[in-house]
């Protein structure tokens, strides 16, 4: 990470008796693309609105470029924002919409017209300057909203679920376009979404939010492969969770539904007899003999879904269900439900979930 540009320090926000954001701290580097990821109602929008200045934190500070902006009004922050509902001004043309921030800032006409043209080119809609918002598709409107936010050269770009009102195909192409424009301009960006795939695919770092807290901040790779809490592990990707009882914390040996399993790590401060949750991604498990992989558990095949190139198998270990995907091998008969099977995995792929 380069030098810190945006710093959110111990922010808390309450509306009356309900606390919506708590203990939120985050340092964002210049030019970084950060996603706030979390389920609906977890406080993503509220945190973003505090950065924008629409809400005032109940506690904590927000610093941009070394300057404390915690109590600055939104119209003094020089921030660009894109809203879920497009929010283009219906009475203005596309060009006038993009020029709005420039006019407010008092930029001379000729200069602002040039900048509008540049922005229209940036969003690949150079011909549409004279259209009104209602004459554009949702995807086009959202690109115009992006251009309008970027035209005054803001210090930060904030996007609140900008893609969720669009259909699936546009959503994917536009998120890539947003990312490439962001890289081209090198603008520090916060992108709010409840869609894990969206966050994983375009972010430098993801902040997973749960119940007003930042549960974990890390690269998509870290978030997916090394989730630090049970919530993160569950929310990002599909996860098989196994309940286990510690047999020997130091040696890392546990009991899963009557089977002994050796983990490759020290489980302290857990002690003998404590319950822990282990998690496995479906892609980390395979059917059959353990072979080079050392972890193995006996299971029963519960059901089999033939999906074409992939076969999704659900197995039971005691009361827990473990899903896994195997590739369809035409020379091999598919697994049969009700038969016993052995699950193989590398012990380092087993995650121990904090609660």
């Amino acid at each position, binding site marked *: 990470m380069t030098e810190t540009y945006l710093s959110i320090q111990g922010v808390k926000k309450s509306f009356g008796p309900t606390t919506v954001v708590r203990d939120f701290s985050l340092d964002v580097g210049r030019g970084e693309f950060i996603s706030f990821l979390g389920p609906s109602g977890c406080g993503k929008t509220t945190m973003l609105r505090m950065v924008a200045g629409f809400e005032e934190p109940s506690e904590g500070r927000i610093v941009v470029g070394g300057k404390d902006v915690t109590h600055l009004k939104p119209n003094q*922050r020089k921030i660009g*924002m894109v809203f879920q509902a497009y929010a283009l001004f219906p009475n203005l043309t596309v060009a006038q919409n993009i020029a709005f921030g420039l006019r407010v800032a008092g930029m001379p006409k000729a200069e602002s017209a040039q900048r509008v043209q540049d922005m229209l080119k940036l969003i690949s809609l150079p011909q549409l300057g004279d259209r009104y918002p*209602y004459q554009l598709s949702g995807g086009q409107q959202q690109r115009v909203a992006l251009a309008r936010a970027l035209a005054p050269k803001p210090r930060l770009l904030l996007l609140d679920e900008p893609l969720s009102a669009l259909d699936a195909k546009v959503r994917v192409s536009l998120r890539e376009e947003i990312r490439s424009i962001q890289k081209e301009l090198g603008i520090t960006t916060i992108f709010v979404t409840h869609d894990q795939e969206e966050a994983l695919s375009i972010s430098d770092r993801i902040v997973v939010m749960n119940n007003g807290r930042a549960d974990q901040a890390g690269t998509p790779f870290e978030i997916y492969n090394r989730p630090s809490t049970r919530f993160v592990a569950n929310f990002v990707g599909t996860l098989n969770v196994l309940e286990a009882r510690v047999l020997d914390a130091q040696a890392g040996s546990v009991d899963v539904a009557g089977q002994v399993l050796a983990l490759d790590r020290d489980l302290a401060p857990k002690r003998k007899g404590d319950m822990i949750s282990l998690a496995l991604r479906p892609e980390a498990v395979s059917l059959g003999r353990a072979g080079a992989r050392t972890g193995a558990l006996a299971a029963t095949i519960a059901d089999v879904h033939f999906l074409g190139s992939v076969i999704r198998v659900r197995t039971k270990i005691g009361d827990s269900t473990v899903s896994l995907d195997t590739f369809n091998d035409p020379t091999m008969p598919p697994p049969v439900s009700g038969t016993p099977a052995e699950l193989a995995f590398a012990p380092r792929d087993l995650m121990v979930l904090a609660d």
Partner: protein
Amino acid sequence: MKAGKFWAWLTFGLGAAYFIIPLLATMEFAMRMRRGTYSFDAFAVVFGDPRFQQTFGYSVVAAFFTILLGVLIVVPTAYWIRLRMPHIRPVIEFITLLPLVIPAIVIVFGYIRMYGSNSPLPFLGSARGTDALLVIGYAILALPYMYRAVDTGLRTIDVRTLTEAAQILGAGWGTIIMRLILPNVLIAVLSGAFLTFAIVIGEFTVASLLNRPAFGPYLQNIGANRAYEPAALAVITFVVTWGCMSVIQMLARFAPKSANRPD
């Protein structure tokens, strides 16, 4: 199907007749001033009457200021309530309805008691002051129509998000109201303005009791003392109102387009 259409047309025809026949009769009567033949004498008399010109002009100016005052009060208020205090909207709606319930005469007597020349706010001490009071009174009489029109206009846009979008682009309240809110409720403001104009042109009670040379008292005066001229005046008033409505229709066509009103 056919029968349904027949009854629809019949109802429409009856309604139109109910509306048009009295108008035609009034017109016919107004044209009978000269014995034995139709003429526009009554209209000539009315238009030639300097008091007609003065009172009509006075009321048009009063209407203009009433509309201005109404827009200045109602647009920011309705906007602010939608933006920040949606919970008190029912209260405001109730207040704006009061002028429909409280007779104008009560309002005027209140004014006369409160703003007499000995009061701390002696509006009635000068002619200008009384004019101002008249305009204020009119603005209150027009409040139910103006507020409702503007509030309906505001409902068609996402006031909060648009406001925030403008704020984050650096706009202050003045810019937001002038460049964003007003243009988007222009049609609504125009229809409110039209209603206000219609109310002010025909208003009698307030103007008469404040003793202002307005069109309403003039109409009443002519109506009580002449035969043919009142009919001519009625037709003229009707044409003026009708003309207003067409102008507003045309303005609406040229007004900025919006997502809520394609075409």
